[in-house]
């Protein structure tokens, strides 16, 4: 068995003294694992860092085997992402969400979104919104997508203010008012159409929204909790907004 594809490194686990088990998100083969012989060498280690775009050749005797990767670097993003707390926490959060997907199941939309995210993950002003949208896409791919296009009760597309915790569908201000204390607030930037920019409080609201559905449908039933890196990511966003982001190098001066 053999295939050739490109992928984004999600992580690598040591295997023996010289090899690693590499975890990648590929364009056509989904999340895939494989062994890289000599992956702990000085030459290979910079390439096998999370966030790097790599060219992959996978070989195995049988399809169900883990197989071996031959890896070549295409775009080395990791060193750029190291600099930003927002980027490293964001990367860990995304990787944790992608591990919820079954292996070898292609998700082209998520792969392309992942590529976009990696390009902007070190820009806190854009990263928050992108990570939230990525989480919504993961929920969708797992079969628990939210329908934010129209009011579940009236079918209206205006004044969508809440999300029903039961159905995961948007609810208009008028229809949701009697149950507003039970409803989840819907940040305006997530509503399909307006394309407005999100501020920090809207991002935090959106994170609470996705966390609710992730916990209820995905992490809870598997006996897991949402990744700790998610809290770190939000804290990094807050620090950036407050203008207190630690700039590496400044403290050494």
């Amino acid at each position, binding site marked *: 068995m053999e295939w050739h594809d490109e992928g984004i490194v999600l*992580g690598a*686990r040591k295997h023996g003294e010289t090899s690693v088990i590499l975890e990648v998100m590929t364009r056509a083969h989904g999340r895939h694992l494989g062994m890289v012989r000599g992956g702990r060498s000085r030459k290979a280690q910079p*390439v096998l*860092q999370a966030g790097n775009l790599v060219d992959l050749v996978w070989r195995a005797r049988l399809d169900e085997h883990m197989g071996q990767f031959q890896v070549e670097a295409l775009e080395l993003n990791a060193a*750029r992402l190291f600099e930003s707390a927002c980027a490293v926490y964001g990367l860990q959060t995304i990787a944790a969400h992608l591990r919820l997907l079954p292996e070898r199941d292609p998700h082209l939309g998520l792969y392309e979104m992942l590529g976009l995210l990696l390009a902007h993950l070190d820009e806190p002003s854009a990263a928050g919104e992108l990570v939230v949208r990525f989480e919504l896409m993961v929920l969708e791919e797992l079969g628990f997508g939210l329908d934010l296009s129209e009011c579940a009760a009236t079918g209206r597309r205006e004044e969508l203010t809440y999300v029903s915790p039961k159905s995961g569908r948007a609810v208009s201000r008028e229809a949701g008012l009697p149950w507003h204390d039970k409803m989840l607030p819907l940040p305006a930037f997530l509503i399909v159409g307006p394309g407005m920019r999100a501020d920090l409080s809207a991002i935090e609201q959106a994170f609470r929204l996705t966390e609710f559905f992730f916990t209820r449908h995905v992490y809870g039933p598997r006996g897991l909790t949402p990744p*700790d890196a998610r809290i*770190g990511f939000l804290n990094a966003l807050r620090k950036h907004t407050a203008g207190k982001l*630690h700039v590496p*190098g400044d403290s*050494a001066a």
Partner: protein
Amino acid sequence: MSKRIAGPEIERLIQLLAKVPGLGPRSARRAALHLIKKKEQLMEPLASAMGEAAEKVRVCSTCGNVDTVDPCTVCTDPRRDPTTVIVVEEVADLWALERAGAMNALYHVLGGTLSPLDGIGPDQLNIKQLVQRVSEGAIKEVIIAVNATVEGQTTAHYLTDQLGGFEVKVTRLAHGVPVGGELDYLDEGTLAAALRSRTAF
């Protein structure tokens, strides 16, 4: 079933040696034979040294280093600067920095890095003890000397967050061109990092 060529004691010795990093079954057999040949000069002193080390070795309750005394030799060395602490992942990193001899500081060994893939969170690392040391007030600078990997840098950012509330300067190692490194062979990430951290000449 293959025939046994040595007694169970020697087989056991070979099996245990094969578990040492850098040794496989073949090299373990060679090492065992070498030890047997040099019984008086090497095998017996080695066995005695290993037994003594196994009996006395302990983890330093202050910094996480390994030594035969607690607190360790590094922590009790009066010639070291007690206001600076270098945070490293493993004891091997501490030894590497000591070989470099560039800083006369104290150390703190984390025992690994945050790694969700391996299920290692903050509670599995020696982070609380570091925060405790810093909270005592004597430390003025914490140098985070972790590996330049995503896990290492996540740990570095986490530590920076944890130490944010204290009056302490948090610094980290520079990323850049290694001595003897040729620019043509360096990955673009390292080159970009090296350019960003350039210094006046």
